[in-house]
């Protein structure tokens, strides 16, 4: 299998003007460099579904913007479907779809179907294949009832389904999703996740998805890349991520007067048996559960280490 995305030493620095007043700052403004993305390298194979996670300000959006040809990097290179994104904007556009949860690519005042029609023209889709493609996506994403509504009247969840359809109209090989589930309720998140995954499996679409919800990552993706403060700190399968933290166990015991006591045990330092013995000796245990740490905890710990 070949790499569809290759990123090498990619770096982006932003120049921020220091806020100071007076004429001096007008003529000789002072700048502060912010390194948003710091020499990251990774590859993604065709058809892979990769979660791209990290705390706020880690550089996820900035990376996605470079890969989707919006931003020029400060240094380093990238190849997306064999093209250097920022040098091949128009050509690359046919290969990629982008969805930014915090922005809309639909025309605010136009009915959703007019936005789609305009997209179809912009991507040179012929009438008949376009109609066929659209009706397939409309069915899959269940947006038939929304087509006549202007974008501004849609709820966040409805809009997100339309946004994803818009990004898929030209059948891109690669889909960049930057926080597609932001602000959605539990059910809407679940729906979006399932749709994204179903669609990707069906068309062998390569996914790069960012999210602050670990469920998005676990339910949609096979691999996870974690960055923190612009640096890549983890790049492996999701099961490998879990395994590397399996020596932590969460033990919860219930005592006879209904009190619940939680403890975390590192089985490397203390065998599980010893921990359980201690608990049993100390309390009159009526019930007990032993669990692996939730993904949230694992991620939190990685962030704190990085």
């Amino acid at each position: 299998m070949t790499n569809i995305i290759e990123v090498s030493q990619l770096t982006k620095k932003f120049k921020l003007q220091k806020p100071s007043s007076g004429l001096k700052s007008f003529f000789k403004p002072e700048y502060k460099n912010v390194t948003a993305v710091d020499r990251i390298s990774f590859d993604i194979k065709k058809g892979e579904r990769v979660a791209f996670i990290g705390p706020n300000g880690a550089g996820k959006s900035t990376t996605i913007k470079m890969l989707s040809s919006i931003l020029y990097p400060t240094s380093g290179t990238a190849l997306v479907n064999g093209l250097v994104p920022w040098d091949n904007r128009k050509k690359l556009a046919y290969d990629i779809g982008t969805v930014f949860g915090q922005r809309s690519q639909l025309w605010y005042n136009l009915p959703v179907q007019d936005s789609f029609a305009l997209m179809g023209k912009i991507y040179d889709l012929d009438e008949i294949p376009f109609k066929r493609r659209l009706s397939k996506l409309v069915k899959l994403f269940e947006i038939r009832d929304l087509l006549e509504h202007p974008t501004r009247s849609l709820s966040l969840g409805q809009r997100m389904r339309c946004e994803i359809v818009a990004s898929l109209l030209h059948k891109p090989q690669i889909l960049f999703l930057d926080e597609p589930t932001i602000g959605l309720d539990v059910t809407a998140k679940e729906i979006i996740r399932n749709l994204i995954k179903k669609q990707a499996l069906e068309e062998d679409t390569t996914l790069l998805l960012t999210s602050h919800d670990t469920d998005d990552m676990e339910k949609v993706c096979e691999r996870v890349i974690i960055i923190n403060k612009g640096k890549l700190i983890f790049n492996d399968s999701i099961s490998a991520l879990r395994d590397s933290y399996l020596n932590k166990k969460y033990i919860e015991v219930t005592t006879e007067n209904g009190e619940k006591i939680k403890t975390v045990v590192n089985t490397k330092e203390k065998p599980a048996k010893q921990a359980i013995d201690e608990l049993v000796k100390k309390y009159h245990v009526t019930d007990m559960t032993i669990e692996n740490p939730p993904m949230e905890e694992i991620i939190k710990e990685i962030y704190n280490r990085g």
Partner: protein
Amino acid sequence: MAARFLKLCKLFLFIQKSNIKTAFLNKADALINVIMMTINNLSFAFMWWVIFENKGSVNGWQFGEMALLFAVMNNAFATFALFARGIQLLPEYIDNGNLDNFLTTPKNSLFLISTSESTFANWGDYITGFLMYFLSGYVNWKSFWMMMLCSFLAFILLYSFRLIMSCLAFIISDSQRLGDNIFMALLTFASQPASIFTGWYKVLFLTIIPAGMISFYPVNLIKAFNWEDFLALTIGISIFWLSSLLFYHWGLKHYSSGNRFGVR
């Protein structure tokens, strides 16, 4: 190359069709707006007619010259407002990061930005433009085609100048108002009899605030074609056009895609 251009033309027609469709959702409203715009323009022209009736001429310009100026100016502005007004929104797109949407498509981003806004009422400017030409007293086929060509060139100048103003947003944030004001200044200068600008004012008028390329050269050329003025005009406009494109592409390299929340 030719095929790509044809596709762009098709997209252009599609966008214009949907603009007209949108405007005609309320036909009466659309027509009233066009008529009001025409009346507004004509009353401005009428004011100048009164002035010329009383004063005779201003440094050699009479109402006929003024009418030619209004013809070029209104036609150029109509073309701008109907087909390229979106460029006025570029600072907003830059500030709130919506420029992203235009950069990830397979079409020329400037084309999509320019056609993203259109004001139907400005069809009234075309009505005024042609009416003023026919009232100018310089009507013949040769002058007609020259008027059409100059209107197009003046449109290119307006567009380039506005693009340069809009690109300031790549450097300064919240520059929308500044750009709007300087653009208004250009339009105001261009609506005066070009003959009042002499000496250093004339130099200014043909360079930094290039209003003379809308008024001075076109009026001369429509009255009587001459190569000197024609070359000065086409070279001057080409310089503005090229600089505006260079500025835009320079800007894209420095675009930082801000995160101010918003929708297209």
